């Protein structure tokens, strides 16, 4: 497991990438160097200001950038993410990472990434690394509405992969959910990240077709390093397991759905 570092990272760029959605790039060479797809960082503003986000928030690493940078997808859900989304180039963010268990890239199967909303982030990183390593990667990416779709050109630029788009309102790409009418040819390794109902549907799909599935889960986190035990999810053994250190990536069979 990579050792996490605690460091201040300087914001390189913050660009609005869709409705309430921002792509933020931060200089952070120590984290960029060792990070693996599926890992995350805790991003915060430090101790000086008690306004939200006082607690750091977990973000999947969305890209390893040239020159020691990392990229994140930030969507505004509440006060904390609203303020994070307002950072400007030159601002500093406190970065703790890389943290957590990464995805295991399949050597012998194509990878089919199922992304719901900002669950897209880890697959931007994964697809870029996997295609470089010669693994065939597809990304099926769903959003509620077309306005929320992260710029497909930017996805192509980061990953070299053209995403298959789905929206619930049908305004962009195909109408429906990421699990609807999927092409599962080639017995792919399924990788999923998104809201819980979507992950549950992915787990059912994988079981039905007897395909391997890794999921990246999301829970509220306190520390990110396994001490507070705040971010638990229920294992298939009926135990609470920490998503920060035992996850965030789990084999779907390890969890209770």
């Amino acid at each position, binding site marked *: 497991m990579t*050792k*996490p*570092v*605690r460091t201040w990272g300087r914001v390189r760029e913050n660009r609005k990438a869709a409705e309430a959605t921002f792509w933020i790039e931060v200089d952070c060479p120590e984290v960029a160097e060792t990070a693996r797809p599926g890992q995350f960082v805790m991003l*915060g503003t*430090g*101790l000086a200001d*008690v*306004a*939200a*986000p*006082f*607690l*750091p928030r977990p973000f999947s690493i969305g890209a390893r950038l040239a020159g020691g940078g990392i990229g994140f997808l930030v969507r505004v859900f509440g006060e*904390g993410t609203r303020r994070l989304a307002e950072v400007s180039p030159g601002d500093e963010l*406190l970065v*703790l990472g890389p943290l957590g268990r990464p995805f295991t890239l399949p050597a012998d199967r194509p990878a089919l990434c199922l992304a719901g909303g900002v669950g897209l982030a880890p697959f931007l990183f994964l697809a870029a690394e996997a295609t470089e390593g010669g693994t065939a990667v597809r990304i099926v990416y769903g959003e509620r509405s077309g306005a929320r779709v992260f710029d497909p050109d930017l996805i192509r630029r980061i990953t070299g992969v053209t995403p298959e788009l789905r929206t619930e309102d049908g305004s962009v790409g195909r109408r429906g959910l990421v699990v609807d009418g999927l092409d599962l040819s080639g017995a792919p390794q399924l990788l999923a990240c998104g809201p819980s109902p979507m992950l549950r549907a992915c787990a059912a799909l994988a079981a039905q077709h007897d395909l391997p599935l890794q999921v990246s889960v999301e*829970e*509220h*986190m*306190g*520390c*990110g*390093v*396994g*001490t*507070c*035990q*705040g*971010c*638990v*999810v229920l294992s298939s053994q009926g*135990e*609470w397991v920490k998503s920060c*250190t035992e996850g965030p990536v789990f084999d779907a069979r390890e969890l209770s759905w």
Partner: protein
Amino acid sequence: MVGLGQSVLGTSFQSPVLLASGTCGYGEEYADLIPLDTLGGLVTKAVSLEPRAGNPPHRVAETPGGMINAIGLQNVGLERFRSEKLPWLREHLVSARTLINVVGHSAGEYAGVVSGLDDDEGFLGYEINVSCPNVKDGTLFGTDPQGLSDLVSKLRRLTKRPLVVKLTPNVPDIGHYARICEDAGADGLSTINTFPGMLIDVERRQPVIGNVSGGVSGPAILPMGVYLTWRAAAAVSIPVIGIGGIRSGADALQYILAGASLVQVGTALFVDPSAPIQVQEEISGYMERHAIRSLGDLVGALEIPGRDPGPVEDSP
């Protein structure tokens, strides 16, 4: 750095800054991030006789100036603590002191944990948790004077190690509970545990926290913690460990001036793992600026200016 050392609880503490129970696991999790052995010490996650599963999620959420948690004392239990966690602490915390936070559903369970640990090496003593707001009977002993007295007396008979009792803020007069602990043989007090609270998601009309309510911590509770520490310290002659919202040297010094010999940093660790190191450096800087040679000179050194009575009404 000016020397931060002090003798407390019958031993030397190289620094007054400890990590608070529940925020530093069993130490190992932060070992790569901060030089643990330069701290005053750490207080482990609660240890119960049997493993506990804890509460359903969400277990944590941010609140204004802090956070709310309801973990539910999830822990590995006495035996796994002894075989998996304590050996690491013994090996890696040499200059820093370890207090083991102990919890139980009954006096017998507390006693079982203390007797089960007492012959082991690698820790200084116990912090008895009678004040967890997030489990059904968590404050049972902390709010019942007779139960508290009986529990502390019972544990006193089982160990010669330092016994520190972690008090709940949720009592009308904390000084009363502080004296009960002292009279029953406690060696020190930790003030305070989290405040009970809740947070509601108005869109869903549901509590945010799976347990419905939780314990509030962080800078938001600092003034309450300082006040209750001041009240507790004034009521007893045993040392008090101040806890609640500390994120800077000045915050820690408020507790120390109010009468705390040691302090614990908790929630701030989540915001920045280097918080306890910064707190130590800032206390040291304060001592240099004020030419204070010994930290002990600051403990309880609060000065309350004499009040000008102002104009007095003529009596009729």
